[in-house]
């Protein structure tokens, strides 16, 4: 049995973290296949904070070269599921407080 997070767990985590970074954003209208930097007006500092928060929540190492793969919600799910499978025990999202 794999410890990798499910697509729903990753989606919930990504949306929660994006909500912390862009609290004024309407995440319900986020288009999952489009880049969220433009949709949510996220800059490079926000994006770095998002990647750090993902790392801390999911215990996944994310090389800078992989950042483009995290551009959309669907991209995040696909990438983080693949990373999660490679890093057993990295499954459980935790609260960032």
């Amino acid at each position, binding site marked *: 049995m794999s410890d990798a997070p499910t697509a729903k767990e990753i989606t919930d985590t990504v949306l929660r973290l994006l909500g912390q970074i*862009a*609290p*004024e954003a309407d995440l319900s209208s986020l288009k999952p296949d489009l880049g969220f930097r433009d949709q949510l*007006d996220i*800059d*490079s*500092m926000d994006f*770095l*904070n998002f*990647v*750090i928060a993902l*790392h801390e929540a999911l215990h996944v*190492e*994310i*090389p*800078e*070269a992989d950042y483009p793969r995290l551009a959309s919600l669907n991209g995040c799910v696909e990438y983080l599921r693949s990373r999660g499978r490679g890093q057993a025990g990295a499954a459980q999202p935790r609260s960032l407080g």
Partner: protein
Amino acid sequence: MAEFVMPALGADMDAGTLIAWKKQPGDRVTKGEIIAEIDTDKAAIDVEVFTTGVIERLLVQPGEKVPVGTVLALIREEGEARGAGPEARGEEIAAPAVAAPPGRLKISPAARKLAEALGVDPESVRGTGPDGAVTREDVQRAAAPLAPRPAPLAVGGEAADKQARMRQAIAAAMARSKREIPHYYLGTTIELSRMTGWLAEENRRRAVTDRLLPAVLLLKAVALALREVPELNAVWKEDRAVRSEAIHVGVAISLRQGGLVAPALHDTDRRSLDELMRALRDLVQRARAGSLRSSELSDPTITVTNLGEMGVETVFGVIYPPQVALVGFGKVVERPWVAEGTLVARPVVTVTLSADHRVTDGHRGGVFLAAIDRLLQEPDRL
């Protein structure tokens, strides 16, 4: 007895509202400590005290809006007897007019500061205070025709009001800048392959929490270039440029609800890239959370704005008075570049300088931009 006054946190501020006191009478305070929270048109600001001593009296209550320069509290300085001053005896506190030789302007420090904030020439103001001294009220009267009329606030609640007031504050500062500062503009294109290559390699070795953004290298390069052209690191005060020994780069940060602030990254030239990255993260987070400190808004000696992420390639910035220069960075883009006779694709950025022609000329501005270029070619030495 030291006076703790409503600070002028930029050229666009003429009044502030006290939100809360962090200290009470009898509390000891140390220079640099936050003792009050105020609300400007731009943000809620934690205000630091510049005296070490004991709070004697609080003169303004939370919720009161008062002009810049108004005494908010009295602080008994170290070694000073309790209740020594007239203020402590409950006597009215008059704004002290500076003693001046015959023929010279009499004006209190608070009035002079307000005049500076409002862009009013004190010499042109008719004083109605003792012996013709210029008072704060005189300055406010003189400023009235200069100030842009507030636009009607849009319907939409507190957030909309706040946004409208911020827009008005920015409008006042930028109108003053364009009215008073003879801008000149220079730009150059800098080849960035050494910087981007070094940064990619550096970040590859680093944990995600320790990675650097390109902006940090650009800020450090600007700060070091200012050491070579220090006349750009100055403020315009009383008809002359006053250079700053310290280099506090103001970083333009857009706010999610609209508008922007440009707080200082203190001692930008003296901090390592890691220190600057941590400080920048903290500054951006606090700017957007509305918890900047007063010194961060009053201390910038130059402003850097980076609009590259918006797709902008060239920035023609407006100087933030009383500063005398602003540096703009555009988007890092791949462009054809001739290197040693060969046409290659290279990452480049356009950096621009908006500068005050009363203080520098194009030659010195060019030296400054060339210094930024040279420094970015050796990123490992930043």
